[in-house]
């Protein structure tokens, strides 16, 4: 019932993919997490799902987080370096254990504001990743490479900007509806 510990999973992934791809294990958190390089997230996802002793068959949550502080007063106290993270919360129904995978991305691809950071899709591994990735693209502004249908899901198709980015500002007008 107990399943594997996060240290055991980390060692298993490290042996399979090496230090280049499995960046670090962070245990000083409520939910320990493993940081994975952006390029190999799809193969790591396939591995943790298909390996019998891991069997992470349920993708509980996939989301993006924008680590950025816009207020000049608070920016000195902000404890993170500005970046964007994609977080995968996994659960194994067979072994009843959990895993958190994280991928660090730059806020903008090639430091060009407006170019969305890119990461390979995992929608071929878990069916639900399709919708979760569409939502992360829509709200946080992350481009999932190889996604079959990467269009907005909650906002209208012609919406401009990604609302969960910290510097996002409400538009002044949308189809005759007054904004801000």
């Amino acid at each position, binding site marked *: 019932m107990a399943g594997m510990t996060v240290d055991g999973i980390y060692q298993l992934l490290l042996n399979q993919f090496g230090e280049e791809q499995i960046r670090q294990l962070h245990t000083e*958190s*409520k*939910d320990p997490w493993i940081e994975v390089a952006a390029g190999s997230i799809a193969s790591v996802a396939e591995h943790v799902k298909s390996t019998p002793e891991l069997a992470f*068959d*349920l*993708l*509980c*949550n996939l*989301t993006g*987080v*924008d*680590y950025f*502080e816009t207020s000049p007063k*608070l920016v000195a*106290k*902000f*404890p*993170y370096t500005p970046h964007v993270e994609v*977080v995968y*919360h996994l659960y194994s*129904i067979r072994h*009843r254990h959990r895993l*958190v995978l994280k991928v660090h991305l730059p806020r903008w691809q090639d430091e060009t504001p407006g170019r969305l950071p890119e990461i390979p899709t995992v929608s071929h591994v*878990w*069916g*639900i990743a*399709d*919708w979760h990735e569409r*939502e992360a693209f829509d*709200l946080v502004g992350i481009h999932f490479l190889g996604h079959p249908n990467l269009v*907005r*899901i*909650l*906002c*209208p198709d012609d919406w401009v900007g990604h*609302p*969960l980015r910290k510097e996002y500002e409400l538009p002044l007008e949308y189809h005759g509806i007054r904004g801000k």
Partner: protein
Amino acid sequence: MTTQLDDPRIIEFDVRTDEMLVNMGPQHPSTHGVLRLLLRTDGEIVHEVTPHIGYLHRCAEKVGENLSGPQWIPYTDRMDYLAGMNMNLGMALAFEKLLNIEVPEKAMIIRVIICEMNRIASHLLGMGAYGLDLGSFSPFLYALREREIILDLFEEVCGARLTYSYLTIGGATHDFPQSIPFPSGLAALTGHAPGEPVSWSEAVRIFLDWLEHRIFEYHTLLTRNSIFIKRTAGLGALTAEMAISYGCTGPVLRGSGVDLDLRRDGEPIYTRMYDGYDYEIPVAPFAGDLSIPHEVVPGDNWCRFYVRMKEVNQAIHLIRQGLDRYPTASGSHRIPFKMTTKLPKDECYLETEAPRGNMGFYIVGDGQAEPLRARAKSSCFCNLSVTAPLCQGVLLADVPAIVGSLDIMMGEIDR
């Protein structure tokens, strides 16, 4: 030229028809809110379903980034507005996990009683609305009558009937009232004198005793109704593999035969609430239940419906045990929590078993009282995503039957 065919449906394929795009919703009565389904149909056969969501998007996650935890609670009510208490609980527990808050025993018992009552209310409405989808009107009226009494009892506890904000970080806002006037709705049904003083717990017990007998009637009215069985059994069969891949949880997953219930399998901060309670988790194909119609296939519409109906019985059982423990419980109904409490530079994710599936909250703190990221992972969002593969090749009239059996709640999907 005439041909003799054994199966009259074959005519459908013989006659060449043009494909037609049909918009179902967003204002369609059987879409349970504002869901738009774009159907590509050939005659009566549906080839493709594309759900379009977002009509009820109220930026709950962006709002959460600008408010502290206690201020965000009223917004969680409005996610799954048929199970506001369960939404409050999921969010409160996520903050408690992040801040290492231990809730007193009494608060935990209050939470179990209240959440299970809300589960009954939600499943009753789910049952009634599903009957309505399939053209049977009367179960809906009975279901609303019963739900009304639960709302009356909630009103006595917290003053609200739909958006409660009752379960909060550190416990619950109020203790159960010692004495309430006997709710007139319940009095009319049970023959008691309305307005007479009664303790809240006693009123709940009277209601549960009365409701338990009604459940049998619903089974004869709907569950074993031969028209209902024809519309649901063997239809929309969802395999366990597909349910897991699409992230389905709650009654949808258990209807497909996967034994996963977070009240038993969740994280310790949640499961310890249910420690020592005796209850069963109904899972298809319901081994030992001899009253299952023979047309039923594991994972079909009927199984999903039946899991919910059985969960109502289990919830009644759980509430009774909670009420037994309540008078002797130690501690207070809440521990104080300041609205300006700063969140640590940490993060946590917590899922709870809401009536419609696993509701997850992901909170990232950055030293301020307002979280850096407040994510609400919706269970119905995942359950709805399975519509497209499930509705492929079914008859047009079966689309509402399949979507209804998933028991979706648009407020939670769009947040």
